[in-house]
């Protein structure tokens, strides 16, 4: 994916390297099984995120989690859940290629995102994740720090989103 990295002092936008990515659907009552299979305690509340090393889990729906891990672990993780499926019904779908991830960092990160995201991002807790919209695209937004966000968007919506971010960087540069 060839996208110019846009940055200047106030904000930096970059496409992040691919990860192993899963969409997990499981009854909240069975969450402990998923925790065991994934090796990380899955958060119980919608919007909460947990991160440890190169693994992360975000609760983005009543029975839905977004899981990240390093690419090399993809098959092993799928196998773990495969085994668990015998006793505990769930759905683990690989979506590593469905999404592209963009990192937006810097003091103007929230201002940048406010170009097309209608949420009050100042109230988004660090470490949390939200499924929301960015103009026409449905995205998942993850807040990694006061000034650090990641945005996940479907592959074919990526050009639209990155185009808007590029425009926003230009606006911030001009100062108008």
């Amino acid at each position, binding site marked *: 994916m060839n996208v110019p990295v846009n940055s200047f002092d106030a904000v930096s936008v970059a496409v992040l390297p*691919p990860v192993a990515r899963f*969409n997990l*659907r499981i*009854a909240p009552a069975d969450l402990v099984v998923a925790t065991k299979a994934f090796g990380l305690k899955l958060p119980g509340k919608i919007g909460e995120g947990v991160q440890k090393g190169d693994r992360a889990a975000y609760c983005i729906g009543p*029975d839905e989690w977004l899981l990240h891990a390093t690419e090399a672990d993809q098959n092993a993780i799928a196998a773990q859940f495969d085994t668990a*499926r015998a006793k505990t*019904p*769930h*759905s*683990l*779908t*690989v*979506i*590593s*290629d*469905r*999404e592209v991830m963009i990192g937006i960092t810097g003091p103007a990160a929230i*201002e940048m995102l*406010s*170009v*097309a*995201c*209608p*949420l*009050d991002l*100042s109230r988004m807790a660090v470490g949390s994740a939200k499924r929301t919209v960015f*103009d*026409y*695209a449905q995205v998942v937004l993850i807040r990694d720090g006061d000034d650090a966000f990641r945005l996940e968007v*479907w*592959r*074919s*919506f990526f*050009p*639209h989103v990155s*185009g*808007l971010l590029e*425009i926003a960087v*230009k*606006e911030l*540069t*001009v*100062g*108008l």
Partner: protein
Amino acid sequence: MNEFRVKDRGRVNTDKPVKFTFDGEVFKGFEGDTVASALLANGVHLMGRSFKYHRPRGVVTASSEEPNALIGTTRGKGQFEPNTRATIQEIYEGLATESQNKWPSLQFDLGAINDRLYMLFSAGFYYKTFMWPRSFWDSVYEPLIRKAAGLGKAPTEVDPDHYASRYLHCDVLIVGAGPSGIAAALTAGRAGSKVVLVDENTEMGGTLLSEPSVLIDDQTAWDWLAKAKAELDNMPNVRRMTRTTAIGYYHQNMIGMVQKLTDHMVDVPTGAPRERMWRVRAHEVVLAQGAIERPMVFDGNDCPGVMMAGAAQTFLNRFGVLVGKQPVVLTSHDSAWHSAFDLADAGAKVVAIIDTRPEVDAALVHQAMKRGIETLVGHTATATKGRLRVKGLRVNPVKHGRVGTARVLSCDAVLVCGGWTPSLHLFSHTKGSLDWDAEAKAYLPGKKTEDVHIAGAGRGLWGIASALEDGTKAGREAVQALGQTVGAANYKVADDRVGTGITQKELPSDRSAGKAKAFVDFQNDVTAKDIRLAVREGMKSIEHVKRYTTNGMATDQGKLSNMNGLMIAADALGKEAPQVGLTTFRPPYTPTTFGAFAGYHKGQHFEVTRKTPIDGWAEENGAEFEPVALWRRAWYFPQAGEDMHKAVARECKATRQSVGMFDASTLGKIEVSGPDAVEFMNRMYTNPWTKLGVGRCRYGLLLGEDGFIRDDGVIGRMRDDLFHVTTTTGGAARVLNMMEDYLQTEWPELKVWLTSTTEEWATIALNGPNARKLLQPFVEGADISADAMPHMALVECTVAGFPSRLFRVSFTGELGFEINVPARHGRALWEKLHEAGQQYDICTYGTETMHVLRAEKGFIIVGQDTDGTVTPQDAGIGWAIGKMKPDFVGKRSLDRPDIVAPGRKQLVGLLTDDPKTVLVEGAQIVADPKQAKPMKMIGHVTSSYWSETLGRSIAMAVVEGGFDRMDDTLHIPTEDGGTVSAKVTGTGFYDPAGDRLKVE
């Protein structure tokens, strides 16, 4: 120095002279001037010609409600804007402006013939005039009227400007930065709330800018203002925005605001947006938008030089410009007396103050006498003199309702104040109720529907002291509503300008009302007699009066005309004003550019164009594209010199002869996973799924509750509890939503989950007798020989080293495979297959060929051969229904009387008698082309192509009772008005037995 500029008055920067042009003439002004103030400083009042009658018009206000001084501005190439208000456009060096609606010139306009013929143009004239002869309407009258209509010239060049857009959240949004708004901002800001304060003007201050003599806390108004702004700017929790208009108040405290960023700049930074649309979600909103001065309605009240008294005061105090050297003041409110005093003190010779009230505060009369200004209380105005500029005002005394002898006062300006109307546009957007104040004869804000506070003149209060107090109160209430603590503030105000007044309908006159050109709506040229005529002609509701006369329908949305129109209509109807009521205010508050609404949604960003991972290859290899839903798909791949017909013929032939390659990545894919997956599939789709083995796939049919076909696609069983469902390209989101809807609301007990995987996989289809030969060497981990992998089977393996879900399916009738690989490998796989395919003369084909090949086999395309009214039986695919299934979505509807009735439209084939004729898709079908019109249409053509394979045209159609019409001849119109005959056949045109699939 301009002739009408007053030294040491105003806030324009006299150190920075600016030259601009108006109608080609160069004028001098200063930085900080608007076009209106600069023209007035040069003694120019005539700025436009009115809409209908082409009457000479001058500027009447000093702000955004201006109805007359509408000009065209040119900022650069492609940057022409019509109908710009001269009172808003700031001047800068080199700005070019022009007046509108005149020819050949503003001073001599031929269009003024309309004014002479005004009898022909009264309200609703197009229902009563220009009716004979009838034929003249289409050829003469309408074209002429259309040409003459309109004010500004529409731009003809593409707008090169960028328009930005942003969301904003705050605790308190304050709209209007006059004394009320600023007081509210200080209160809320000091309390630590996140405050946004906006004003449509270049600088904040509102009335304070026009009342410099008022003292606040022992400082002049301007000094106090400067300190207040500095204090606000020092608060990190406060954001101040000027040149920002709140254009609409939407649900749940969402306010739309348009910020003008560069229209005032001579050097615009490269890449700077021209305007920004802000979408603000505020916890609390304070509306401090003030009040709008009301004109008076009397004969000739639209003459250039007749303007609002408050505007004259603003032009003097804010811009240092005298609008006339000998003004006359005509008023029914105390405020205009103060305007008169300001002008007199600045050197104007105020000829007289005419007040329609029988009595006026003695102190005001005294102040007038001190300045040598004649006062005529209890008088009326009955006409103006002058055409391109007012020269005199005709006034009469009024005693006991009788209008006395007239007297003409010479003057060069008439400053009018018919009272003040609280500005309630934004409040009205919320559908808050408006309460009629009988004393003020004005509407005031009533019941609220949003978290909003209204302060100051916007709710009928008057004077700086009460504005500051009320703004503080609103600020406190807003902060308290947030659950925060807030302090109090008191302001000591001296030399305040308080006062009261009355409002009225038309001014009484000794002359015939039928002949008076007494304007109510300046912009739409609506007179008082138009409104009375409307009532006489039976318009009883204010909604009808408005639309019949167009009063209040111009771009100023009745800011100067609604109330006067209401008073006159109420009088004509013999009712009280609140019984007649107001019409609806709608956003935007003031004219807003299309660009601001469009924001980034233009060019590349107008809509999302979704592209597959293989799209780049198609583009590089000359594909033509077509839109399918939000995707762009390769339509055909023309080689040198080929048109679409030739390219598609070649692609079809090559695919059936050897092997063709097609990008099928856009088709929807849904992972249906869980122990209840098969139960869910049985309920959703018509087909039986229980016995579909793992490693097999089946064509699935999806109906709506109404029994009509909604979508279809091949569905593979990956595991007992896992289905790989495909949908049409355009149906992907819709099908997933429908599935989730049923799952969440009807069958929440089912343990099954749905995940979209459309973009997880890139999909390449290989079709043709050599498909397996090409593919086999790339496959590892599976045996895809004819015996091991029958038609409609699937397997997980690797293809070209990439993990894959491999399906043996065919939408062409030839041996076919669909290879799914993770999206990032899509293009690499495509290139590998393409290279290896050279030995088989592999042909890449697009959606057009795909359409033709499937049609040759009679396969339907949902949305092409179906239109939401076609059942499985209608389409001849009743075999897809699982007969033994107890239930599935749409099953019960298939028994409805109209669904089982005979004569339904059924899908058949059509073969034209002349094989070279290709029917037009959508053409209606008749049994007898000689029948009388209107003919009985019995169906239409759904798909129609040239078939290279068969060497003739083929078509599919839905025809009433089609299955019983086999071999009948039907008739179809052609594009040039002729008729073509065709025979009804089945839809399996090519290889009906399916032998082409049995390739080793």
